[in-house]
């Protein structure tokens, strides 16, 4: 039951130590800065200090109640993250795999379009552009 916002990288294995003890199923999702065309140097992520962690925690609790999660964890970074670097992770633990999968999926759909983060792409030539919200992410959220 952890929600954390941080500038530093995180380590999936360290995050998973002691996670979900007693559960039968553990799912993790990790988002990584992907270089699509070879032009991207980094992402720069802005967030809303004060609101962010509370919003992550609220949503983790909502997911836990809805999907019967025995444990959950959300870690999201802000600041500059180079290509290949980890952006965020969620982990869910439950008795059965369906709950763990659905809980993680739900948390991700919510994070994509309701958590107060904004991404900017920094190209290798130094130019920057804000990432536009994807209609597909909004659609994904409407499934739940």
């Amino acid at each position, binding site marked *: 039951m952890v929600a954390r916002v941080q500038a530093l990288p995180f380590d999936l294995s360290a995050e998973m130590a002691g996670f979900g003890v007693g559960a039968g199923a553990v799912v993790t999702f990790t988002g990584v800065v992907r270089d699509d065309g070879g032009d991207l140097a980094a992402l720069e992520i802005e967030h809303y200090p*004060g609101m962010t962690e509370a919003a992550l925690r609220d949503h983790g609790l909502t997911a836990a109640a809805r999907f019967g999660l025995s444990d959950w964890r959300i870690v999201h970074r802000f600041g500059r993250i180079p290509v290949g670097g980890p*952006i*965020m992770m969620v982990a869910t633990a439950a008795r059965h795999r369906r709950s763990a999968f659905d809980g993680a999926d739900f948390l991700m759909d919510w994070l994509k*379009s309701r*958590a*107060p983060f*904004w991404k900017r792409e920094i190209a290798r030539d130094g130019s920057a552009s804000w990432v536009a919200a994807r209609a597909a992410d909004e659609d994904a959220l409407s499934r739940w």
Partner: protein
Amino acid sequence: MTVEVLYFAWMRERVGHPRETVQTDAATPRALIAELAALSEGHAAAFADGAVVRCAVDQVLTDLDAPLGQPREVAFFPPMTGG
């Protein structure tokens, strides 16, 4: 009332600063936007496309037409792109 207004992402860039204190009697976030948009060209540019403006009142996501109440802090920002 006195309200702290925050801006994020490209709305912050267009306004030119991340926060400001305003006096307002706006009844809804949308009415507050109308007042803010009149402050400067930067503000006007930030709010030019009303369809993309998102809002949090005292750090809770809020509809632009919901009653504003007596908030301490109102934030405006474009659609979120986390995850």
